[in-house]
Each structure stands twice: as structure tokens, then as C-alpha cells.
């Protein structure tokens, strides 16, 4: 058998020529600056709101969490599904098993095909989901972002669990009380790109600039990717790398539980303070065994509940997502839309040994 290798050489030559041609074409090409004019116009025309329109019956809603089987997201979504029954609609939860940037995209397409009235999404990446969400909006499907926002051009409203500023600043205050406002601290976050986490961290850093925290020093922001094992290892790593660490803030329910598990079984128990955002059921035993003094969270049931009512109000034409519009959210009463299409749930609740037994979620 004789083997000739001329063909691949010819291919290589052709490829090189192609690459060269492309680079020549680059003169006068598309750069960030020349493209920056093409802003994102909001898809679909803005109809005018009719605050007195009745809530439509039989609305089909779908919750698309960052990932399924995440205990926190399950609570939020189940409360939303229950809320939909209150106004005679139906809702379901679908979603990917991993929280990667692109994994939610196929689900959005599926929900478009299934002709849902509204999609409620906690975005893994604010831009990766944008294309398909705009497509959904152009087919008159309402988009409600909850928990973690998308690019504002790709949703109608964002249900914010609490003012991001309030969460960020209160986390620092909570930890400062526990460590006497002195010493090295670290943050254990979820994924590096989670919009909500990063906003909170930004406000934490800003809060730390105040004079009363001059003796507190943020030494590291670690990422556990909302993965139990990874968060556990990151906690271990933080404590080994910074032997003078006095406290950790973990503003994610997966992270704080993993960190508490590690600390409670290590020599750092009682020496390193841990606070952040967690659910009472997850954290109960760590509060009782003294690993954690206090942590906080909004009521995730109310978050899902409010998101469902916002979706219904949008689909029924009561609101369009513009600032200043108001809608009735069942037992939570009247809510209004703030700047940038945000609806704020309310201030977070601090859970400690005194009150934790009153909460079950």
C-alpha cells in the first residue's frame, strides 16, 4: 500500500491561506468599540398596563432554577407552584442538574415550544440565557427573573430577595458582632459568576471600608461553586492558608452548610465564626452545637410566592414591568416595581439559638 501525504499538505496550505485572508479582512473589522452602539433594545413592544385587569385563569408557569435538587431552590419553586394554584394557574419546575452557564438554554427552548405563559428563571449566567429569553419574549411569554438576575434587557421584572445592599452590609455587621470587629475574614461564595453573590460581595467590601471595621481585613474570596464537596474543601483550604482567620461569611446555602460541617468537626470549632445565608433546617444542628451563632435569610417561600404572582400579573396585563406599577401579591399584599424592573421582597431575618425553632424550611 502506498500512502501519499500530499492531500493533508494541501489542506494545511488552504487553511493557512484562509486564516491569512481572514486576518486581512480584520482591517476595518468588528471591534468592541465599533459594536458598542448596537445596544439591546427590549424585545417586544410595551403594551400599556391595566392595574384593574383580573388575573387570568389557567396560566401556565414554569420555574427554571439554577439547578434542580438544590434544597433552597426546591423550597422557592414549590412555594411558587403552590401560589399558582391560588390564582387558578398551573406551574412546574424544570431545570438542569448542573449549574453551568449554558445548561439552562435548552430548557428555555423547551418551555417556548410548550407555549408557557411565563418563564421564571434564576440565571446561572446573565448573558448566556439572554438570546433564548428574548426569543421567548418575542412570542409574548413573560419572563420573571428571581434569585439571580439576567441582563435586564432579557426579562420583564426581577424579584430580588432583599435589597442587595441590605444583604451585603448586614452580613458584615452580623460577623462583626460575632468577632468583636477585629481580625482576618474570608468569604466563601458560590460560582464566581453568580450575579447575586457578586453584588452582595461588592456591598460587603464597601461596608468594610467604614471606620468601625478598620481592624477587620478581608483576605480571600473563595468559590465553592455551590457544590457541597468543593465548598467543604475550600473551607478546609481557607483555614489552613490563613491560620489567623477569625470569621467566614458564606452568602450561599450550600456553602454555609458545608463550611459549618467542616468547622464543627475540626479544631476551629468555637474559634472561627461563621455566618452567611442558610436555611434554618440545614443550620439548626450547627446553631445548637455552637458552631454558628447567627445567620440570616429571607423567607424563600415568600420569594417563590411573590415571583409567581408577579408572573401572573404580567401575563394578565396588570403590569408591564415599568417602574412605579403596582400589583397585588396574595397574602404579601401590594408590591410595587422599583427602578430597573426590580421588586424587593423585604429585609432578611436573622436566625439564632433563640428563634431558630420557630422556622421550618
Amino acid at each position, binding site marked *: *500500500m*502506498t*500512502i*501519499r*501525504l500530499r*492531500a*493533508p499538505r494541501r489542506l*494545511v496550505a488552504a*487553511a493557512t491561506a484562509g*486564516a*491569512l485572508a*481572514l*486576518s486581512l*479582512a*480584520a482591517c476595518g*473589522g*468588528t*471591534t*468592541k*468599540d*465599533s*459594536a*458598542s452602539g*448596537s445596544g439591546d433594545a427590549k424585545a417586544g413592544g410595551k403594551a400599556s398596563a391595566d392595574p384593574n385587569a383580573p388575573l387570568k385563569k389557567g396560566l401556565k408557569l414554569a420555574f427554571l432554577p439554577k439547578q*434542580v435538587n438544590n434544597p433552597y431552590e426546591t423550597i422557592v419553586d414549590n412555594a411558587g407552584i403552590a401560589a399558582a394554584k391560588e390564582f387558578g394557574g398551573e406551574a*412546574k419546575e*424544570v*431545570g*438542569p*442538574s448542573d449549574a*453551568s*452557564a*449554558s445548561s439552562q*438554554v*435548552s*430548557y428555555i*427552548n*423547551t418551555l*417556548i*415550544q*410548550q*407555549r408557557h405563559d411565563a418563564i421564571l428563571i434564576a440565571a446561572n*449566567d*446573565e*448573558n*448566556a440565557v*439572554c*438570546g*433564548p429569553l428574548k426569543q421567548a419574549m418575542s412570542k409574548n411569554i413573560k419572563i420573571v427573573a428571581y434569585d439571580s438576575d439576567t*441582563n435586564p434587557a432579557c426579562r420583564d421584572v426581577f424579584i430580588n430577595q432583599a435589597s442587595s445592599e441590605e444583604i451585603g452590609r448586614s452580613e458584615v455587621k452580623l460577623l462583626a458582632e460575632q468577632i468583636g470587629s477585629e481580625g482576618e475574614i474570608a468569604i466563601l461564595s458560590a*460560582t*464566581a*459568576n453568580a450575579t447575586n453573590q457578586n453584588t452582595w460581595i461588592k456591598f460587603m467590601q464597601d461596608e468594610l471600608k467604614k471606620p468601625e471595621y478598620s481592624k477587620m481585613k478581608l483576605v480571600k474570596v473563595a*468559590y465553592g461553586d455551590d457544590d457541597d464537596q468543593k465548598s467543604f474543601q475550600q473551607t478546609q483550604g481557607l483555614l489552613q492558608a490563613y491560620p489567623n482567620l477569625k470569621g467566614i461569611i458564606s452568602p450561599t446555602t450550600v456553602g454555609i452548610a458545608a463550611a459549618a460541617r467542616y468547622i464543627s468537626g475540626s479544631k476551629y470549632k468555637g474559634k472561627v465564626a461563621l455566618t452567611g445565608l442558610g436555611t434554618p433546617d440545614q443550620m439548626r444542628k450547627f446553631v445548637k452545637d455552637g458552631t454558628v451563632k447567627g445567620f440570616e435569610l429571607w423567607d424563600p417561600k415568600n420569594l417563590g410566592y411573590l415571583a409567581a404572582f408577579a408572573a401572573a400579573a404580567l401575563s394578565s396585563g396588570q403590569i408591564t414591568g415599568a417602574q412605579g406599577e403596582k400589583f397585588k401579591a396574595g397574602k404579601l399584599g401590594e408590591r410595587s416595581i422599583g427602578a430597573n424592573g426590580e421588586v424587593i421582597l423585604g429585609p432578611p431575618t436573622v436566625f439564632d439559638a433563640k428563634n431558630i425553632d420557630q422556622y421550618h424550611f
Partner: protein
Amino acid sequence: MSRLMRWETAVTALLVLVFAGGAGFSPDFANNDNLSFALDDLSEIALIALPMTLLVVCGQVDLSVASILGLCSALTGKLWDGGMAIEMIIPLVLVVGVVCGLVNGLLVTRLGLPSLAVTIGTLTLYRGLAYVTLGTGAISEFPTAYTDLATSSIPGTPIPYPVALFVLLAAVTGVVLHATGIGRSLFAIGAQEDAAYFAGIRVKRIKLILFAVSGLVAGFAGVVYTLRYGSARADNGIGLELAVIAAVLLGGVDFDGGKGTLGGVIAAVLLIGLLRNLLMLNDVSTEVQSIVTGLLLIISVLTPRLIAVAREARGRRRGARPAVPAAAP
């Protein structure tokens, strides 16, 4: 195995069945929007599956493809953020893809290391470089002209532009594999590397070129991925190499090398993608979807072996010599 009983024929039949079943039972399945989306969603896997088929036929594997994709995505973002033109970024990123592939190829051919071990190493290495390039952040706001190109279809058809490009490349790959001397030498190397070498085939040269092409295509898939999602990230495409290898195996390519067809692989890519789409439309959970894909894979690896065992047993009963293994096509 007779032509009718060939595994890739079975995969193609299954694909037709899934398509017909989907169109019949699910009104949301066989419409232009959904099909075009489902195809577009397969772009990167389909593209990378082409060189991967050639590699596996030749007895090699490249596990670093998804990391090359991630590195190229991160680099695309970094350069775009730095103000470089997209038309300039693309060729540069492709060169980086080729270099990544060449590193794999040189380690395999010059040092004689097994490609599995080499590319497990570079899988971690290239992903690490991707994080060094872009950190854990994301770059977005690519020009809409390009992001639209990555997601929209040729007018009047459900065929997205990246898939049209795939069709072109698939045609070239198919001809190379099944109608040229190079293709025959790939099968020869996969079946018996030493024999191929003594027959005058330049084994090392061919392997090196294959790894470079694999890197090139993975780099290109990185650009497609970035524009399709409008988000350049270092963790883009994590785990994608397994989806590609799953498709190659399901397509009937023997992991030991020397056997397989490109048609089978393409049918398998479409089968996995459309099946997943259909399951999602019917609200089947992610967990069950992975169970279905996993079972399909095990069956695809097991069936040819079972057939071989059964044939051997029959041969022994008749007292005849064991059946001669099917020759490479």
C-alpha cells in the same frame, strides 16, 4: 457482520424511529423553531466529533478537546475585551487551537506516550490556562451580527449556520476517511499499527496531523460556543469531551481502533441530541435523560460483542473454525 446488521445501521434506524415517533406524538417537536434549536445546540459536539472519529479509528483519543474549547473561548473574550476585531481574533484563536493540538500530537508521537494519558494531562493544563486567561469572570456583549450568525438559520430552512458549516466539514471528513488512501491508512494504523508502519505508512506524521486538526476544530468550536451563548468563560464546555466520545462510541466506532464509519457517528450525534430534546419536551427529568443516554451507550458497546460471542458459539457447535472478524470497510 452483514451490512444490514451493522451497528451504524441500527443507530440510523433508531434515529429515524425517534424522529418519526417525536413528530407523531409531540406536536412541538418537528417544527422549524425546535429542530433548528436542537441542531444548533449540537453544533460544538458535532464539529468536534468529526476529527474525534478519525482519531478513534486510528486507535487514538483526544480528551483535551473541551478544554481547548474553553481556552479558545476565554481567549476570544479576553482579546475582544482588549479591543481587537472579531475578524482578527478568530484566526488567532484557531492558531492557538492548532498549537494545543500539536502539543498533544508531539507528546504522543515523539515521546511515544499513550494519547489517553497525554490528553488527560493536557485536559487539566488547557483548562488551567483558560482560567489564567480570563479568571472566573465572563465577557459578553459580542456584536449582534456575529451572535445572530451563530444562532440563526439559513432562511427558509431549520438549518442553523454552524450546522451548515458542519455539513461541509462532514463531507470533507467523510471523503478523507472513506474514499482516500489516507482514510485507508487510518484504518490500517488502528487495526495493526506495526503492520501499517512496515507497509510504509507514515504513522507518526498522520497522528500528528490528526491531533493538530482536532485542536483546530476544538478551537473553532470554542468560537462558535462563545458567540452562540454570547458569553466567553473559562469554564465553557466543561465535560463536553465525554459527550463527543459517547457519540463516537454510539456511532459504532471501535474504541480499539480500526473499525467504524463517519455516517454512524453523525447518526449517533443526531440521535443523542434529538432524543434529549424529545425527552425534555415531554418533561422527562435530567436524571432520567442521563440514564437513557447511559443505557444506549452500554448497549452500543455490548451488542457487537454479544453478537461476536454468539457467532463464535454457533461456529463451535458446528465444529467449524471460528468466524473471521469482519474486515475494516
